[in-house]
């Protein structure tokens, strides 16, 4: 699914509130721009009923290959997303 489809869906939901689809598209872009800005500044972003974006560090580690060569893997910072607990029920697969 792409952004345009999402924006259509959102403007359908907000029909009674008289917000044009152009404006909803701009709001959509702005929201994710703000979230990505904060992530790049290494801040935790917490959104109720959706999830949390946070930075996690993988420490340096040493692994061994089958031919006994040592490989040193450097440390790395990654962005982790943890969904909020109350949306689990919504996301569960529907039983046929």
């Amino acid at each position, binding site marked *: *699914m792409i952004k345009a489809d*999402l924006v259509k869906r959102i403007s359908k939901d907000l029909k009674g509130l008289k917000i044009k689809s152009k404006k909803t598209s701009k*709001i959509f872009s702005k929201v994710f721009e703000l979230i990505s800005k904060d992530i*790049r500044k290494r801040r935790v972003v*917490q959104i109720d009923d959706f999830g949390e974006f946070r930075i996690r560090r993988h420490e340096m580690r040493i692994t061994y290959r089958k031919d006994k060569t*040592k490989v*040193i893997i*450097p440390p790395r910072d990654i962005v982790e997303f943890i*969904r909020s607990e109350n949306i689990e029920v919504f996301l569960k697969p529907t039983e046929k």
Partner: protein
Amino acid sequence: MNKKELISEISIEFGLSKELSEKVIDSMFSSIMQSLKKNKILKLQKFGKFRLVYGTDGSDKYASIKYYPSKKIATRVNGNFDNLRKVKLKPESEAEKLESQDRETLKVLKETLVSIEKDDVQGIEITKEEVERVLISEDLIKLHDEITKKGKDEPDKTGLWR
């Protein structure tokens, strides 16, 4: 940042009331979840990709959302370590292994000597030589002899190996 701050930023930027901007943001995230449930993958330009994953945990199925950030975000976040690469080392030969073990044990011995010298034990005088003799085991002496190939007839200058 949390939802309240987002709402206030959006209301300021677009001239909407806080209630209205809250409704917009709520409908935004609920439509994201609905699209994820339907299509299982959602790609957002310049932000990243969300993927819905089902797993089994005993009898029940649980759902989790995996997030793959865009390249820009990932490189910016990993800025401190971005220039580091994986390093492959050749396998150690047996002689190198023994040498490295020997070095490590000597290091440990030196550290314990230093710690003993620092601690003051009342009324007991312990000489450095006595401590070294106590700490050095017979196995180490044998190993040292093997590595250096010193014969028994050779005189010991340090006075430690007795």
